[in-house]
């Protein structure tokens, strides 16, 4: 049985953060994680019978050495502790690179997350879709990593203007300059990477 029993509903933060992370490091592959509370998932509506899961947070992790493991492992230990305090669990990851498919390292990352939560998913970005202002995300389920699901009924976004509003945040307000990930934290431990509070507040204002 390959299908996940969930639909994944991205909050404004979860939707825009991967794109902001990519904008902050335009010549690197970037990776991060998504958090949610699966025990708070809604009941299945009729039809496909899937339960809606609100993906409330996204945390940017790496923009360097994305093929290597030690810093990723250290980062994920932090994320686990942080998530635990908020009754959240790592439910997915994202990777934004030149290509649409998950890299080898990205697949290993997803495999690692799957051990903690079987219904995990990965999001990558189709740059061409970004230009049209549509939903640029391509989803891969950990339960069936060979399939890329584009424009899937399984992924819902904060609204039809979310991409345009995210691009405005980047081009207009340059909000990606506020973003800090674990790699930034390693270079300067004052970098606040788990919550990116200022950025999160700006996103809440910009994406409606």
């Amino acid at each position, binding site marked *: 049985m390959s299908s996940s029993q969930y639909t994944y509903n991205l909050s404004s933060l979860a939707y825009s953060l991967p794109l902001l992370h990519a904008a902050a490091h335009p010549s690197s592959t970037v990776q991060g994680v998504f958090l949610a509370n699966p025990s708070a998932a809604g009941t299945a509506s009729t039809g496909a019978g899937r339960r809606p899961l609100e993906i409330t947070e996204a945390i940017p992790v790496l923009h360097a050495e994305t093929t290597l493991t*030690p810093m990723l492992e250290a980062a994920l230990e932090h994320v686990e502790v942080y998530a635990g305090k908020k009754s959240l669990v790592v439910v997915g990851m994202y990777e934004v690179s030149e290509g649409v498919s998950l890299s080898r390292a990205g697949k290993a990352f997803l495999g690692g997350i799957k051990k903690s939560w079987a219904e995990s998913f990965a999001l990558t970005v189709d740059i061409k879709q970004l230009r049209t202002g549509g939903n640029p995300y391509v989803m891969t389920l950990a339960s069936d990593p060979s399939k890329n699901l584009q424009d899937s009924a399984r992924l819902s976004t904060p609204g039809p203007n979310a991409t345009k509003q995210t691009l405005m945040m980047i081009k207009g307000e340059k909000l990606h300059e506020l973003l800090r990930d674990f790699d930034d934290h390693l*270079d300067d431990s004052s970098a606040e990477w788990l919550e990116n509070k200022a950025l999160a507040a700006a996103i809440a204002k910009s994406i409606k």
Partner: protein
Amino acid sequence: MALSDKDQLARWRQIGARHSEKVVELAPKVLSAGAAGEDEWAVREQLAFAALDMGMVEWATDQLRALERQFPDSPRVGILAGLRYEALGQPEEARKVYEAILEFEETNTSAHQRLIALSLPLGPSHSIPLLLTYLDTYYTDAQGWSLLADLYCELGLYAQGLTALGHVLVVQGWDGGAVSRSGGVAYTMGDYQLALKYYLRAIEMATPPPGTAADGPASTRDWWGIRQAAKRLLDDPSAATSLPPNLVVGPEKLRALLELATERILSAGGSSLDVRRTVLGGQDIIR
């Protein structure tokens, strides 16, 4: 004292920093004020590169045409013409430009590098052979060896990646970043003893002499590397390593290193310290 726009651009050219977003802001101001002086052509070239980076192809084209008029048939300007084709999504046109430059000047390393860059979207298995041929001739190109290491690691060929980083260090022995990366590769390969050695060397290289202060905030990356490696080794003392037995670090020293790394990471202070404490305190150091 803050640098003037012109001097800031010069400084970035000197250290080879891109800062493309800032360059497209500053360079036009400097040029239109007529303030560039003898730097004018270097600034135009810098602006062209930055504009291409930002996808502002028309701006780049303006600068390119000015450079072509000033320096006709210049291979250096030719590279920019090729890059413009790349930015327009016309790799075959770019390839023709670079190959033409190489016919005129076989040793133009920028043209060789761009041909390799054109092969990157095809995947590491295409780029690696080209890069190896290039490095056979241009052995001292540390960036080339660094790129080779990245490509090998993308394929999961970590041992080969480590060897490539070794060549970076032959060419740039002072490169602490390459030592740190080598630690990361060794760790990913599962050779935690070797990783430990690299991370310790990276720390040694980054530690200023006694009596001098380090400039800027303290990096905790290599201390995390030590913590991760030491923890793995304490959890699994029988882990295999490529190191000979006399270089292997035993449990007592590993515990001491773990304590030291923990102390160094915590003393860096900063954000989410409570989470960090939980992560670091989560190991039983007292066995």
